[in-house]
């Protein structure tokens, strides 16, 4: 469970203060498949970064299960991310010198998982994202959609409590976008991993079972779709 309380974020650039987030209160439960939507500049990236501990809020608290992550020292926060949070970014987020398989394995190596476990999970995940025949390709030998699917596999490899994805489909065509979302949805069901993603794309929004809309740094609606 992720509990977001009273989050404020103010950016200061020179004399100008930008209120990127104001008084955000949210609770996200295990297994949710949540979309954060809103116009450009509304604060989606800022919110996801703060939930993922990549940025610190000006005020407020983020509690993940029992850990208050805003209070963690740097190395512990990095380790926390390694063990509890999976990330998919908009683009270029694979390690360019590693193959698809090595990219997926990477976090498990950092977690010091055993050989056999790593191998099995890597192959299982690459199969789940439909790339079992691309395991030895480097990122620059794959399409954007394929790279994002590797990124999703990598995000799940560490068995995180939840996956954060900031506009994962922004650079993909509509077919690849839909495909990626289907895969994420499938993994959300199979592994019961919470997904939180931001998007502009209406077709992607439709797949979510909870839609949080923000505007000017404030939550303006929060709707649940009970899906079949």
């Amino acid at each position: 469970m992720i509990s977001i309380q009273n989050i404020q974020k103010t950016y200061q650039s020179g004399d100008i203060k930008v209120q990127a987030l104001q008084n955000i209160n949210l609770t996200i439960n295990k297994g949710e498949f949540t979309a954060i939507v809103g116009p450009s500049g509304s604060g989606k990236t800022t919110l996801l970064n703060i939930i993922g501990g990549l940025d610190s809020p000006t005020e407020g608290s983020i509690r993940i299960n029992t850990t208050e992550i805003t209070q963690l020292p740097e190395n512990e926060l990095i380790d926390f991310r390694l063990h509890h949070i999976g990330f998919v970014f908009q683009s270029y987020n694979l390690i360019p010198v590693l193959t698809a398989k090595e990219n997926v394995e990477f976090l498990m190596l950092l977690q010091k998982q055993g050989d056999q476990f790593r191998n099995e999970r890597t192959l299982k995940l690459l199969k789940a994202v439909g790339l079992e025949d691309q395991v030895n390709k480097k990122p620059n030998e794959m399409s954007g959609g394929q790279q994002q699917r590797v990124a999703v596999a990598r995000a799940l490899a560490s068995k995180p409590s939840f996956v954060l994805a900031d506009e994962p489909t922004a650079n993909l065509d509509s077919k690849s976008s839909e495909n990626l979302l289907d895969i994420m949805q499938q993994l959300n069901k199979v592994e019961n991993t919470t997904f939180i993603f931001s998007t502009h794309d209406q077709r992607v929004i439709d797949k979510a079972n909870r839609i949080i809309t923000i505007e000017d740094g404030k939550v303006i609606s929060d709707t649940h779709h009970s899906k079949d």
Partner: protein
Amino acid sequence: MILKLAWRNIFRNKRRSIITVSSIVFAVVFAVTMRSLQHGAYDNMLKNIVGNYLGYVQVHFKGFWNEKTIDNSFYIEDLDSLKNDPTVTFINPRIEGFALASHKKESKPVVILGLDAKMENQNTPIKESLINGEFLSDNSDGILIGKGLQKIMNVQMGDSLVFLSQGYQGSIASGIYPINGIVDLKTPDLNRRTVIMNLNRAQDFFGINHMATSAIIGPKIDEWEKTEKSIKEQLDSSQFEVMNWQQMLPELKQLIDVDRAGGTFVLIILYSILTFSLFGTVLMLAEERNFEFGVLVAIGMRKSMIIRVAILETLIMALVGVILGLLLVIPIVTYFHFYPINLSGQMQEVVEQFGFEAIIPTSLDPSISLTQTFIVFMITILVNLYTIIKIKNIQPSKAMRA
């Protein structure tokens, strides 16, 4: 895994890695060659002049160096006490005195060098200077003359020279001696004016039995400073003067110092260029990969580990550069050690005017390579401080926004 990442990163931008490695190779080759030539030149001068002829430390009767007359002689047995000094390997008494040499119509001032043949053979390489004839044998009257002198006097082996000089306390010294051999003392100046004879013959000639004007003190290898200090403490300073080669040959010492400083200056420039070239690589690397480092920190890789990857990359390149550099430079330096560079034309004239042999063999002293290698590594590490600071300050949200 760290090694794998570092290794693949090096091959990712091949051209830049090649530039980095080759600038290190170039620096190593250039620095080692230059230093080896310099040290080789010094070694050669020292070997020829100091090692073969002058000795690193000499003892004279007090005042002899300033006024080289036979009257400033001492009894050889007065130095016997030095034989027990553990820093002394040998004591070679010598006589150095001026005389006028004549053959037919030709007359020239020369320096008569009286040597104890047996002791010199044991302890100094002066015998190797013989290029024709026979070296001194124990009781021969024969003399050896410098090859320059042979030309000037227009004499052959077997001819005799007549010497005339002032002996001990105003006596007249004269004698006739057959030429038994020609020597090359490797310095044109010495070759023009040196005559070598047995110590006892020189004693007879100058009328100073049991005496000598100087003694060459053999130091333990490379520790002549210690020997000098030790014998200074033992000898009566009102009777003897102890001098080292730097005092006896201040020009040589000065020449070496100036040359070394010039070389150091060139090396500082070379290493500054290398530093900037490496710094450029590191700078580009850090800027270019800022986004990537941000991603790595975001997904859970500790900064210390990223730093290790980055440092390993530069260290591997430095290592490859240094090894290639050494592989390249060692044969070059070795070759010129055994086949020294012969100066020709004007350079030759200038060098010979100073009284030095106009060849430059390279030094094979491994400490030269070690020092230069060490400096290259230090620069590599220094330059990497930037990467370390850069990575330490990464904020993933900012790095990935760019």
